[in-house]
């Protein structure tokens, strides 16, 4: 067979046809015989004691089969929803790790905390019954603001008197203090990294099922990592051994981190199915997902950058409050620590860095990894403070960055925050980005805008991320309670087709196509002869799943390792068939050949011989052609690049128009450029969404005013321009994985927010605006303009439309959004 495509080509995705024709198989599309529908009663208040919970009337309602409360969970002795990462504090003590019950017991700790579960024959019956539950809660003062939480009398958990989960520091404090003592200039910046709701378009769902004759549990769930769920839920919550628990994550409609974690609802339906002897299905409603999915970001930071007289960075000091929410989610403690503080060198040679991170409990939904996870927060503070320093020193922001870049010939490079960057060329990505954006002629465009009364600005962001998570021994030393390798099985079938079982999970990334490209290239066979199987613990031997831009770098490497084992075995079989020494067999273009001769056996001939071992070295070699591999990465990978954003601000209204966005990235080798571009597009809009319109806002009582799509500003098609996305011609392949790939899934969300904010601050430079917190709503921008120019305030206010300054604190989006919400043409 001739191979019909190769690595490096933008092959169309094979998974598309089922999605384009309505034949996808998402969790909520699955219905099991005799199933019950589960609906949760959730806390309407942020903090309080449950003083009454009477389910009698609800239990008697039509269609209701059973109602469970926290008492039932406690009586059954079920475990706490576990946390997968333990931080050791600066004082040597372990982090405070309170229990997270499956259903609230005694106390509720956030709006949305599940209190009772109604199992009924239909969703409507369950929802009707929920209304009949008699619930009384004695409200306690809510802990919401992280700074106030430090001294507030009220505590989320009794174990944490000051609401601090951990107080942790990282880096060399003495060296950093010394750098500041010697600095010619210090730039200081206080900033907020606003809270996000991940909002994968498919809401979470879970179906539990139990077969009593075999004691087999099955969980269908919307997960990025079914084996991880099997481990966490089976071992820590329900005490079900792996061989009695199957977890299936079928087609999953986006994750962005929010579907990594083990959630209480998954454990509940799995447990409840056994109690009632029927399958139990729960599907989250969107407004429910706002109060039950893990949120992202939510840092409050003070950063200081020390520079010498020439603009060389001498030291960086960071003090961050990071919101954990009410309970510790699966990877929450790792996000502001080892995925954040370790990235504070960025692309720069800053010799001394120190960070203090205090993780805070609040009466809000928990915060965990969201696309980028810690790295966007690090990039945002670094790229904002570098920009502010450039402005203060009256230097070109590109020039200040260039002056401090780690030079291309300095790799591998040890940063002062524990990472060793294997490779990179930051000058190349910057140069390409500046050329793409026509940076040199920006002032001409600014002058043109000014003639129309508009303020034009341009902003840079030179990001780096640590992906390909992660070397198991390293993360274990840092507190991870799991290994972070990946597993693969490559099964060559008798007639030469190949089934690849991967522990990575595809929920939009296109693994079924990309992984097939990799295998087709390596084996020299047609892609149609290759099947990629994922998402089912009964089919895939093991896996750690998809997050941290790790699928190709770690999962793909495991596949390559298994393929190489197949080739090695195939050589021995071919040697026997060809009566040659295995050392003389070469594998090329799908043929096992005797080097230097025309003697050859096709791949399918060798696979057939392996399964029909009539003429076979049976004394030395087992029949069959199937290999397993586990790949544990030696290092993180370090994708990097330059993102540039150009905006125009209307000074009368504060409305920001994004005119252009250019991404110049180094992802190492690229398998499918079409998919890589798509990943960047999506990441960029998530990042620009954060910077521009999105905001998860709690009020002081812990209510969530931005708790639905009516109130939370999701990015829409008409708010953004086309994007220009290119990988750098100077891309530097990863040096330590067999594909030379670095990962591309998170870069857009990491690089883009500071580019947009830097652009808007640049546009407002004549108003003396030094910083704006995200999201840059018209109200926030307009207010900054007015505050900066009090003399002009009266005229500005008089000419501004009422909608802009009077918009509420929740995100109001761009001008088009209001008309969209209230004047949409469809429904």
């Amino acid at each position, binding site marked *: 067979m001739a191979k019909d495509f190769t690595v490096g080509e933008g092959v*169309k*995705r094979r*998974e*598309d*046809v*089922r*999605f*384009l*024709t*309505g*034949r*996808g198989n*998402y969790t*909520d*599309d699955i*219905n099991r015989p005799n199933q019950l529908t589960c609906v949760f009663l959730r806390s309407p208040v942020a903090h309080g004691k449950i003083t009454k919970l009477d389910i009698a009337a609800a239990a008697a309602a039509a269609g209701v089969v059973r109602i469970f409360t926290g008492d039932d969970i406690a009586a059954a002795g079920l475990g706490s929803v576990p946390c997968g990462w333990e931080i050791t504090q600066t004082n040597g003590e372990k982090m405070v790790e309170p229990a997270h019950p499956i259903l609230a017991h005694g106390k509720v700790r956030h709006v949305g905390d599940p209190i009772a579960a109604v199992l009924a024959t239909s969703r*409507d019956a369950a929802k009707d019954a929920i209304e009949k539950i008699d619930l009384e809660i004695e409200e306690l003062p809510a802990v919401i603001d992280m700074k106030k939480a430090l001294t507030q009398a009220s505590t989320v958990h009794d174990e944490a008197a000051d609401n601090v989960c951990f107080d942790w520091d990282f880096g060399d404090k003495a060296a950093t203090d010394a750098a500041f003592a010697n600095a010619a200039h210090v730039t200081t910046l206080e900033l907020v990294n606003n809270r996000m709701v991940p*909002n*994968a*378009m*498919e809401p979470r769902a879970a179906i539990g099922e139990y077969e009593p004759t075999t004691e087999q549990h099955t969980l269908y769930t919307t997960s990025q990592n079914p084996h991880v769920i099997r481990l966490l839920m089976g071992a820590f919550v329900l005490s079900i051994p792996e061989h009695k628990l199957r977890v299936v994550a079928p*087609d*999953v*409609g*986006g994750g962005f981190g929010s579907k990594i974690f083990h959630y209480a609802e998954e454990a509940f339906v799995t447990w409840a199915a056994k109690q009632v002897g029927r399958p139990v299905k729960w599907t989250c*409603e*969107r*407004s429910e997902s706002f109060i039950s999915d893990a949120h992202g970001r939510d840092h409050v930071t003070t950063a200081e950058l020390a520079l010498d007289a020439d603009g060389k960075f001498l030291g960086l000091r960071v003090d961050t409050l990071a919101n954990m929410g009410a309970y510790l989610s699966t990877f929450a403690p790792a996000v502001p620590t080892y995925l954040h503080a370790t990235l504070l060198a960025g692309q720069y040679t800053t010799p001394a860095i120190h960070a203090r991170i205090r993780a805070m409990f609040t009466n809000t939904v928990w915060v965990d990894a969201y696309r980028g996870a810690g790295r966007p927060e690090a990039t945002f503070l670094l790229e904002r403070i570098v920009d502010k320093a450039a402005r203060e020193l009256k230097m070109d922001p590109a020039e200040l960055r260039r002056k401090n870049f780690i030079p291309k010939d300095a790799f591998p490079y040890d940063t002062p925050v524990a990472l060793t960057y294997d490779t990179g060329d930051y000058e190349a990505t910057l140069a390409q980005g500046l050329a*793409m*954006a026509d940076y040199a002629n920006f002032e001409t465009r600014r002058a043109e805008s000014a003639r129309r009364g508009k303020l034009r600005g341009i902003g840079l962001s030179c990001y780096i991320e640590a992906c390909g998570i992660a070397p198991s021994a390293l993360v274990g030393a840092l507190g991870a309670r799991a290994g972070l390798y990946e597993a693969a099985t490559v099964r060559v079938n008798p007639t030469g087709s190949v089934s690849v079982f991967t522990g990575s999970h595809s929920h*939009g990334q*296109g693994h079924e196509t990309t992984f097939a490209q990799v295998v087709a290239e390596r084996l020299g066979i047609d892609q149609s002869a290759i099947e990629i199987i994922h998402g089912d613990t009964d089919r895939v031997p093991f896996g750690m799943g998809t997050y941290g831009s790790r699928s190709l770098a770690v999962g793909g490497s495991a596949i390559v390792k298994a393929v190489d084992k197949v080739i090695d075995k195939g050589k021995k079989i071919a040697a026997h068939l060809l009566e040659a020494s295995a050392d003389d067999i070469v594998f090329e273009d799908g043929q096992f050949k005797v080097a230097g001769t025309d003697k050859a056996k096709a791949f399918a001939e060798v696979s057939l011989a392996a399964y029909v071992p009539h003429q076979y070295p049976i004394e030395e070699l087992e029949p069959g052609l199937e290999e397993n591999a586990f790949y544990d990465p030696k290092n993180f990978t370090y994708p990097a690049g330059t993102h540039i954003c*150009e905006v125009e601000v209307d000074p009368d209204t504060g409305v920001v128009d994004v005119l*252009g966005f*250019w991404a110049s990235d180094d992802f190492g080798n690229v398998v499918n450029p079409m*998919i890589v571009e*798509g990943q960047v*597009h*999506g*990441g960029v*809009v998530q990042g620009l969404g954060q910077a521009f319109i999105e905001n998860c806002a709690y009020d002081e009582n812990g209510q969530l005013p931005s708790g*639905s*799509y*009516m109130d939370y500003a*999701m*990015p*829409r*098609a*008409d708010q*953004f*321009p*086309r*994007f*220009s996305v290119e990988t750098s011609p100077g891309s530097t392949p990863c040096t330590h994985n067999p594909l030379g790939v670095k990962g591309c899934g998170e870069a*857009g969300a990491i690089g883009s927010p500071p580019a947009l904010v830097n652009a808007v601050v640049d546009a407002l430079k004549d108003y003396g605006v030094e910083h704006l917190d995200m999201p840059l709503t018209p109200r926030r921008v307009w207010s900054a303009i007015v505050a900066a120019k009090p003399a002009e305030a009266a005229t500005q206010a008089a000419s501004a439309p009422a909608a802009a300054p009077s918009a509420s604190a929740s995100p109001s989006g761009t001008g*088009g959004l209001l008309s*969209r919400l209230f004047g949409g*043409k*469809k*429904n």
Partner: protein
Amino acid sequence: MPQVSMTVNGQAVSGEVEGRTLLVDFLRETLRLTGTHVGCDTSQCGACVVHLDGESVKACSVFALAAEGGQVTTIEGMASPDGSLSVLQQAFQDHHGLQCGFCTPGMIMSASDLLQKNPSPSEHEVREWLEGNLCRCTGYHNIVKAILAAAARMRGEPDPDFGGAIAAE
């Protein structure tokens, strides 16, 4: 319970519903046509868009009984009977206009209504039309690109150049 009858993808169907049953639930739960998705509860996301009597509607905002006697087309009815993709579906694949696939049925149903009404939409018109369809994966870039390409192909023209960074309009 009341009975409702309608034509879905050319087939006459009927079933018992409650007065409050939404068209999307009738399609998904009663008919098991699960290609139409539910992504929100406030009629914002557009994952449930179907055609009712030739117009795109959000099936979460129509009672099943309100579709009595109606002609409904869902994503399952968009490819040719032989399984080949429509011009619009093919353009989505060619231009990587989908990633996780969850919003895709609504995007296809919404965009096909646009192209029926306006065979030559501008980029701006496409973006404005999609205001009622949310996608979290693609950043919309390739969706817009695919719809413009489909429009061109339906007019017998080559796919337009979608390069360049600053929006044309």
